[in-house]
């Protein structure tokens, strides 16, 4: 079985994120880059499926040069090979353009299963897995908290507000996973050393045969019109308890229409 895991480098979850003044895109230089946390679960699930069923795990990313660190991390965890799409013309691509680029790269490589984290911590849209599946004409089984592959079928438990749905699809298919699914492993020293010898294919937009007109900020269907810094925290209201603190708080909550 040939499994692709799509991963994204995002600014460190705990870092203060900001937008660039020149083009209103996320300032990726301002903070350390880390693998999107949910993508670690996706890598782990791919590795477990490959260990259980046999097969190869290829990690795929689109991003600036330093996103290669994220490919390397996945290889250190145990993935077999990497594909890194990197090109200045990709900068500013929206979800639709990203799904176009990823779908083309994936289509050229014939995977049985494509696994995504269900969202990225920077954009939080959760739409790329579905868009990629649609572009590839493949079934999408998303928000999986459990994945089983049996022959030509993939069965998942789709996490819902009330519990889960059992969903099945024929392979090839696109799956996105939630954090409930597993405990991602840490890259071990042995894994880190082994990763140095694993192949990473670095592609430009031209190498991947992509149409540059469909990529980047100018092709984006959405645009950040303007942005402003979060206003500084205002001083709170202090309620002094003189035996009537409870009543005062209740009055305040009523006035603010909280209750």
């Amino acid at each position, binding site marked *: 079985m040939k499994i692709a895991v799509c991963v994204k480098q995002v600014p460190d979850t705990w870092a203060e994120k900001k937008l660039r003044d020149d083009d209103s895109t996320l300032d990726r230089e301002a903070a350390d880059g880390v693998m999107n946390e949910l993508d670690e679960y996706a890598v782990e699930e791919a590795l477990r499926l490959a260990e259980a069923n046999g097969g190869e795990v290829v990690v795929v990313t689109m991003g600036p040069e330093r996103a290669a660190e994220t490919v*390397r991390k996945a290889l250190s965890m145990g993935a077999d090979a990497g594909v890194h799409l990197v090109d200045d013309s990709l900068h500013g691509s929206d979800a639709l353009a990203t799904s176009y680029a990823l779908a083309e790269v994936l289509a050229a490589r014939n995977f049985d299963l494509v696994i995504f984290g269900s969202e990225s911590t920077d954009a939080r849209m959760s739409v790329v897995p579905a868009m990629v599946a649609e572009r590839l004409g493949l079934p999408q089984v998303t928000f999986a908290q459990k994945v089983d592959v049996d022959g030509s079928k993939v069965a998942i438990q789709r996490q819902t507000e009330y519990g889960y749905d059992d969903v099945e699809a024929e392979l090839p298919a696109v799956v996105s996973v939630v954090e409930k699914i597993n405990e991602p492993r*840490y*890259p071990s*020293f*042995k894994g*880190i050393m082994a990763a140095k010898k694993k192949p990473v294919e670095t592609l430009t937009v031209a190498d991947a045969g992509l149409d540059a007109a469909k990529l980047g900020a100018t092709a984006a269907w959405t645009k950040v019109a303007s942005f402003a810094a979060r206003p500084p925290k205002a001083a709170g209201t202090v309620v002094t308890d003189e035996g009537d603190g409870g009543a005062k708080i209740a009055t305040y909550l009523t006035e603010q229409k909280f209750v």
Partner: protein
Amino acid sequence: MSMDFSIPAELTELRGAFADFLEREVRPLEQEYTREYWGPSLDPEAATPLISQVRRRSADAGFYAPYLPEAAGGHGLSVLGTTLLVEDAAASGMRLAMVAVAPPNPAGPSTLLLKLPAHLWSTYVLPVATGHQTMCFALSEPEAGSDAQSIRTQAVLDGDEWVINGTKHYITNGADANFAIVFAVTDAQKRAAGGITAFVVPREQYRVGQIQYNMSDSHPAELFFDNARVPADHVIGEVGMGFLEAMSFLNAGRAYIGAQALGLAEFCLTSAAEHTRSRTAFGKPLAKFQGVSFPLARSKVDIEAMRWLVYHLAWRVDTHQDALAIMGDASITKYATTEWAYEVADRALQAYGGMGLMREGPIERVLRHLRMLRVVEGASEVQLLVIARTLGL
């Protein structure tokens, strides 16, 4: 030019993975259990199951005893790599992190165990490499501390078994260990020069005496060997060569002690700097008084000096075969790092004022531990003795 101070990329990557492990898996346990186990009513034994849990989890994740070769359940990590992990664990400020890598805590697998015959590895090496068991290092005796070759514990060969008699004390992890590496006299004439042998002795062959409560958070114990018997193959290396075998691993041990002192010093300085930036007195942050900021600046100088002594020693152990040639560097590093780290912690405590004295504050425990490091594993004066010898004195 062969001088290169850069840390190899793979070690930086490993540190990143270890940092994730500490934050995700150790920090929550540390926060949940700190009050219960390390609060004002100190009950160190109660924390034993928690410490075992962290040890095993770290072994599963690939960070425990990583310096062991793969055949012994390790990762073949260099002394420099292990040193960096020990430093990072200490710098995290978490008590539980200090057990996650193993050294310099003698509960973890000593590389001396690799000198056991191969058929004993499944009994004595793999269980400690995977964190399922722990060991202790039984050298000190009531009448032999720094002067280790004056030990009185004796071992006599009786048929195909060694019979060991004597008393060990101040043995870290003595009460909990599954077995002990025991140093005993096998030739009273030769002593250090071929008359002291290291044995591995399982727990059922010796008796644990008093727990010896000291100023640190982990309390050593007395061990009594009263006709303890071990098969003839339970010898580490050659009979009579216990001290020489131990010496060849001592240099790495000094690097790990130095790394722990360095990490703890970093933790103290980071904490104190943060405190003085946020704490206001006389109308401005403490950090704005030079009487407060200059001692912390001095600590920064000490820390950078410690760092390069430790990394350099680790690099020498990794790249030089001759253990004796490195002993001077090892002693310089052990002496300097433990003495300076103690001063760094003391200045940090002073910057915290009253809070620095509190059991619940961040510094008090570290200061106690660092005070201990100036005594154990070769007291500072023993290090000076070794350094003086390198000067021909």
